[in-house]
């Protein structure tokens, strides 16, 4: 029934693109005149209803198409699950060929389902959340464009086309972070995101150049096939492979906000909350993980890179988690949590557990999107208040939001049975078995898990429990969100719970008779179940990590429920440490002082000194010289006839003298 669906794979990105065109047209022709005329958003203009239907429908249709395609792919034999659809030639120059063609394999199948699925829910949510927004159509144009770019990113069959999506999502991120461009901080954040991402792209670009001149192609299948062959024959040295993969990883670090390029992500919270959920939690920021997983065959050839990936991932995980401890802005807590969780995914990739990385990517997409959307719901209920210190006691006022958020918090904390538990535990276990620094990596990751549980429940307790600390004006207007928002919340809550069941680790799954579906789906045929260490060790570590997570929750309860005065006391006791954490370890300030300002100053200097003084100085100096010489020479031409006559005489003397000299000699 569905076998023919693959031929229509192009529809998956095409639907959102259509949405871009239609919504863009509406934004241009229906919304712009309204906004320019200064009419308020009060009256519901008919075009808004059209947008509210069109935009989610485009992504929904895309999701449906994706489902059909994936089903069709699944119907194929496991070793035949690779579908490439050539659309049109894009850039061709000599031996270089980068076509626009789409590739669907198990990995991209997972990705498109996550992107379109979560994307659809967030589109629906946005209809409610942005209902008071004036630039409604513009928002959805950007959001559709983002979905399109993300789909191009994951469906590309070569690195260059992936780069198109890669930069495309970066652009949408820029546009959406700066959506409220009237606010200076929003515009700044957008620019920062784009520029920091570009630093990563710089690495990605160089990686592509090096890869092309090494392998003669940028198409995944060809690159991986040739890489394997070349490594076997020794023409691909470890150094070369390491360089290529490290440069790629630089790109991933930029996009996925890892140390040292994570600084843009917390600022990106200036954007509307659904944007944070979609772009800065569920999809775009995971593009780096996807890229590393996609290039797994290459990365495995470069052990040094793998170690780097793992170390960077682990370091980012714990570093960002500690910053998350003291943030007071609800979205910023979640942002640092995202950075931290992305670190987990890289840790997984770095230890060779790409499947675990992708697994966590998917579950994280569910629960982190849910967290953001729930936070958005809270913010919506509080008329835009984002400060945790001005919340409290919301449990009964926004029940659906509370329940869903609690589910998500439990999931991210790693409570057994929820999705986060399975994916995180998989990573921990794989990290423990890593070829290098296994136990150290495990310890760091486990500690991070504890911190994560702590700050997530700190958030939950501060927002939903205790006495209300809301402004009275705000408190009066607290209301549960409309169904367009709560419905996606509920759907994501279900996914946050159940999403992990596709990847139940073998040690548990075997007991209850559920296979690790995801691993089977993603792994090349025959690779499953190759390794089996001690089941007892695995179970023991699992129990330990559960204990750590529970400990984190208990600590949060103790500090923020039982004795709300303790955090202040702790802060007062170690002010330096507290300030450092609160100020995000001053990394932004460091970058500003060490990179941004010197660059601007150097540029000023170059311009003023080099251009204006040196080069123009030489040029104008030459002009002045000519003019001065002219002044001198001019005096000879001063109209004094005697002078002219004398020159004539002198000339005659010299010429005759020369003739005599010549004829004599």
């Amino acid at each position, binding site marked *: 029934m569905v076998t023919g669906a693959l031929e229509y794979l192009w529809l998956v990105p095409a639907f959102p693109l259509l949405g871009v065109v239609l919504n863009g047209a509406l934004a241009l022709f229906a919304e712009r005149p309204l906004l320019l005329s200064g009419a308020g958003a009060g009256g519901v203009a008919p075009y808004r209803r059209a947008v509210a239907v069109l935009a989610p429908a485009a992504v929904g249709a895309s999701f449906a198409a994706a489902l059909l395609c994936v089903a069709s792919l699944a119907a194929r034999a496991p070793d035949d699950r690779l579908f490439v659809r050539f659309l049109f030639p894009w850039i061709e120059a000599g031996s270089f060929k980068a076509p626009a063609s789409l590739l669907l394999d198990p990995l991209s199948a997972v990705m498109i389902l996550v992107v379109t699925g979560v994307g659809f829910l967030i589109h629906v949510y946005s209809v409610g959340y942005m209902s008071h927004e004036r630039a409604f159509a513009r928002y959805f144009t950007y959001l559709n464009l983002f979905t399109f770019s993300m789909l191009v990113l994951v469906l590309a069959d070569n690195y260059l086309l992936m780069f198109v999506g890669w930069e495309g999502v970066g652009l949408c991120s820029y546009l959406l972070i700066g959506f409220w461009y009237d606010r200076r901080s929003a515009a700044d954040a957008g620019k920062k995101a784009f520029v920091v991402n570009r630093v990563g792209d710089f690495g990605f670009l160089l990686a592509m150049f090096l890869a092309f001149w090494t392998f003669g192609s940028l198409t995944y299948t060809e690159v991986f096939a040739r890489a394997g062959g070349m490594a076997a024959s020794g023409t691909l040295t470890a150094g070369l492979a390491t360089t290529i993969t490290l440069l790629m990883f630089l790109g991933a670090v930029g996009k996925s906000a890892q140390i040292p390029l994570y600084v843009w992500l917390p600022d990106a919270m200036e954007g509307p909350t659904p944007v944070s959920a979609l772009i800065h939690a569920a999809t775009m920021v995971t593009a780096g993980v996807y890229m590393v997983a996609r290039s797994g065959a290459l990365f495995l050839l470069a052990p040094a890179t793998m170690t780097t990936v793992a170390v960077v991932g682990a370091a980012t995980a714990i570093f960002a988690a500690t910053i998350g401890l003291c943030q007071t802005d609800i979205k910023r807590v979640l942002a640092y949590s995202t950075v931290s969780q992305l670190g987990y995914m890289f840790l997984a990739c770095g230890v060779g557990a790409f499947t675990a990385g992708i697994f966590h990517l998917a579950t994280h997409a569910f629960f982190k999107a849910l967290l953001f959307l729930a936070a958005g719901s809270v913010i919506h209920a509080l008329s835009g208040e984002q400060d945790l210190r001005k919340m409290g006691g919301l449990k009964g006022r926004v029940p659906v939001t509370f329940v869903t958020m609690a589910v998500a918090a439990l999931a991210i904390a790693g409570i057994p049975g929820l999705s986060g538990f399975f994916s995180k535990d998989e990573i921990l276990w794989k990290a423990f078995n890593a070829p290098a620094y296994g136990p150290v990596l495990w310890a760091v990751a486990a500690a991070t898990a504890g911190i994560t549980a702590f700050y997530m429940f700190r958030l939950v307790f501060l927002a939903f429990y205790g006495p209300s600390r809301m402004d009275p004006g705000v408190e009066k207007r607290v209301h549960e969100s409309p169904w367009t928002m709560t419905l996606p919340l509920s759907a994501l809550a279900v996914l946050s719970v159940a999403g992990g069941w596709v990847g139940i680790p073998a040690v548990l799954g075997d007991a209850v008779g559920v296979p690790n579906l995801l691993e089977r789906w993603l792994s090349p045929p025959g690779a499953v179940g190759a390794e089996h260490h001690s089941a007892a060790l695995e179970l023991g570590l699992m129990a330990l990590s559960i204990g750590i997570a529970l400990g984190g929750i208990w600590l949060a309860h103790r500090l923020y429920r039982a004795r709300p005065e303790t955090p202040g006391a702790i802060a007062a006791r170690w002010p330096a440490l507290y300030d450092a954490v609160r100020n995000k370890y001053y990394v932004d300030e460091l970058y500003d002082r060490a990179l941004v300002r010197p660059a601007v100053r150097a540029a000023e200097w170059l311009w003023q000194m080099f251009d204006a003084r040196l080069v123009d100085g030489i040029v104008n100096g030459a002009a002045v010289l000519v003019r001065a010489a002219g002044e001198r020479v001019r005096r000879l031409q001063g109209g004094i*006839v005697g002078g002219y*006559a004398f020159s004539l005489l002198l000339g005659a003397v010299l010429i005759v003298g020369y003739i005599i000299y010549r004829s004599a000699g």
Partner: protein
Amino acid sequence: MTIGPSAYLLLSAILFGVGVVGVVTRRNVLIILMSVEVMLNGVNVAFVAAGSYLGDAAGGVFAFMVITVAAAEAAVGLALLIALFRLKETVDITELSILKW
């Protein structure tokens, strides 16, 4: 003692040189013009001497032409002088520098 062409040519050079000194050093326009006549005379001596020693009439013809030119030059030069004198009330060539840029 016979007089060869070189003697005439030497005389010619001396006359020319004296004329040149006048043209270059004097400030009185009238005297400059007369010095020019002296130079032309020196040239004429050379032409005539050369023509006569070589038995070629061309020397004479050239001297004739030079005299004609000298007459024309004197006429135009003096006319200019009068015009300038009317304008500036001077015959000092150093003050005639209106062509100066």
